[in-house]
């Protein structure tokens, strides 16, 4: 709809699934957000019909194209595998000749490692392949540590578009969200990686990020200050996704911008492209003490990462796709954080968008963040 030619100013929240339905994702009841535009006079009935069809199944058409490419790709990839099969056989031969030393388990481990090294991009996998890689990762973890994790590969649900709102008046800078996030998402403890940054700002100076302190160590709330949190905003038109040379990061149908940690080559181009400081890189091998590992994982979410790959907030995909709130929302003692489905007219987030004066950061860049700020 209007989003194709005017994507700068209108976030067309409905564009993915709900064409033609009466509710609008923008939060306004009707007509207030440009995404409801009736066919205007310049379009004849026929043209409009075409445009509407295009808008509603455009995505699917696109996908078909992908599938075609995907098929070719897979066959080529398997050709590549065959090419290197001699290597595999060689390795296998060595392996079997030493088999009285190497147990079945280490053979299986080697097999898993091999398949993991040459698997495809998660974005292009079908459900069986997704399940296979998840199973491999779970098994691999079991072989290595003797512990069992659960890892899901749940896909985006229909009629869901996640959004987030942040109440600046409520936030007191306690940073409980930051700690909960680190624990939930198995972030590297050595480098103290954090997805969320809380900016402490001075009263009377407005939203002056330049003078804000995002690394404070004193008692909060500090006199004469207010607080504002930032993280990945899951932009609807994410610049980080366009620049990735290998499509290791993409926007899922429920609006989450995710990364396939195994496909990322670590070029950090996406980091340079993100205007919101939303991405974090594993400069060295991330380490989480075994006892602190969150074993309830999602492939695209909090599973353990390796060194040299990008990661970021996923709105806790392992939780949100299971119908729960992200860890930061749950941990916030003040209720400053609100999360929900933008397409559900009864959700709290929709209430906030409809009744509060909301704004987003750097709207001029056309990134359409799905993260709104508001005040009481």
């Amino acid at each position, binding site marked *: 709809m209007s989003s194709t030619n005017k994507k700068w100013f209108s976030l067309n929240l409905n564009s993915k699934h709900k064409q033609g339905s009466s509710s609008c994702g923008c939060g306004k009841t009707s007509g207030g957000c440009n995404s409801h535009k009736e066919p205007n006079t310049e379009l004849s009935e026929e043209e409009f019909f075409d445009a509407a069809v295009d808008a509603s199944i455009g995505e699917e058409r696109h996908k078909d194209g992908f599938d075609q490419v995907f098929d070719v790709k897979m066959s080529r990839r398997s050709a590549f595998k065959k090419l290197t099969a001699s290597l595999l056989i060689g390795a296998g031969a060595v392996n079997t000749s030493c088999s009285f030393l190497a147990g079945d388990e280490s053979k299986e481990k080697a097999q898993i490692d091999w398949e993991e090294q040459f698997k495809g991009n998660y974005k292009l996998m079908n459900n069986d392949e997704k399940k296979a890689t998840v199973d491999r990762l779970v098994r691999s973890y079991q072989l290595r540590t003797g512990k069992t994790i659960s890892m899901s590969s749940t896909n985006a649900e229909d009629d869901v578009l996640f959004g987030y709102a942040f109440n600046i008046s409520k936030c007191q800078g306690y940073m409980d969200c930051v700690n909960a996030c680190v624990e939930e998402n198995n972030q590297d403890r050595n480098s103290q990686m954090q997805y969320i940054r809380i900016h402490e700002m001075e009263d009377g100076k407005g939203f002056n990020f330049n003078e*804000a302190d995002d690394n404070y160590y004193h008692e909060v709330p500090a006199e004469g200050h207010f607080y504002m949190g930032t993280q990945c905003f899951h932009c609807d038109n994410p*610049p980080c996704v366009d620049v990735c*040379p290998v499509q290791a990061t993409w926007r899922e149908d429920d609006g989450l911008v995710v990364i396939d940690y195994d496909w990322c080559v670590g070029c*950090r181009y996406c980091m*340079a492209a993100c*205007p919101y400081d939303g991405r974090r890189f594993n*400069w060295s091998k991330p380490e989480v003490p075994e006892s602190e590992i969150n074993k309830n994982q999602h492939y695209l979410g909090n599973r353990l990462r390796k060194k040299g*790959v990008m990661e970021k907030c996923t709105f806790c995909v392992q939780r949100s796709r299971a119908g729960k709130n992200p860890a930061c929302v749950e941990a916030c003692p003040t209720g400053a954080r609100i999360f929900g489905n933008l397409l559900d007219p009864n959700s709290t987030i929709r209430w906030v968008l409809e009744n509060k004066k909301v704004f987003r950061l750097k709207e001029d860049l056309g990134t359409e963040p799905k993260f709104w700020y508001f005040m009481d």
Partner: protein
Amino acid sequence: MRRLKVFKRLVIDSLDVITHGSKKYHLWMALLTLIMLIGMYCYSIQIEQGLSVTGMTDRVSWGLYISNFTFLVGVAAAAVMLVMPTYVLKDIDFKQAVLIGEGLAVAALIMCLAFVVADMGGPSVLWHMIPGIGVFNFPNSMLTWDVIVLNGYLFLNITIPFYILFRHYQGKKSKKSVYVPGAILSVFWAVAIHLVTAFLYQGLQARPFWNNALLGPRFLASAFAAGPALIIIVLAIIRTYTAFKIEDKTLKKIAMVVTVAAQINLIMLISELFKEFYAPTHHSESAYYLFFGLEGKTALLPWIWTAISMNVLATIILTFHKLRNNFKVLFFACFLLFVAIWIEKGFGLIVPGFIPGPYGKIAEYTPTGIEIGVTIGIWAMGAFVFTILARTAIKIETGELRYKKDK
């Protein structure tokens, strides 16, 4: 079949040429090998421990590697300034210089690719980027464009000189109809590698320091100054140490190219400075950081001011015919210009793009010893590759190396 035999002979002969030489030559190659080994050792540490051994952080996520990559793309593109007049305009002056220039382009491109690989967090999964086997995000990602144009340019710059040398090796003349189309193509290609590399940065709305329309053209101007400047220096060295004849006229013509490019570059610099400082906005902060420092953080100040003074001085020297025609002064000016642009188009361009960060955070970047080790190692590799290429080419061109049927 015969071609294959000739090719085999050529490889054997050039191996011979490469491994034999004066004491000075051996010393030079040994030195380069040593530096390369040190670089490789540093790289192995980086592989082992991750990119945390470099000075890069989440705040400044590109550093010395990408800076050098950017600069070297410019050097590679410059070979074309010599290709065009020689092959197309029938200006025979340049013919000798061209092979050297293209050798330089090949070496620069190999260094570029090495720098990109050194910068990757996961070099073991780089196959994800190979079209067909992996997923190539074309045409969305400018990086994929860059991969295509750089490799294409590398291919052109290997095949054209190879064809010419291969013919000369057999004592035959090279056919114009074969190499001229290639040469013309490579002219456009050189502009493309440069623009595409500039677009890599220019297209990021997140970084106002890069997101300006002048970035691409300025890349071109500075490249066409720094590249030929390097070629002049290299030709001067070759002229003194080998039998390869390069006329004064050739050097003077290249100097002319350098001069014009340097002047244009300076004009663009002035335009840029005017825009940033006449009516400074929030978006001028990176420029402020670069030229004056922000909040007491001034790491780049000495560098950029050195670069600018060298740049201005060199441009002034080059502008006066009297000075330019004195070879000693010319070489000095070329050296100044080369270093100045290396600073300016290297970390003077990349690092300030990240400072201040998206929310105004100012975190400085200083490269670590390991990073510098890898960088110098890659430069040594470039010099090594170039020496080999140039040596073989010169031997063939001077007629010392010829195909003999039955040896």
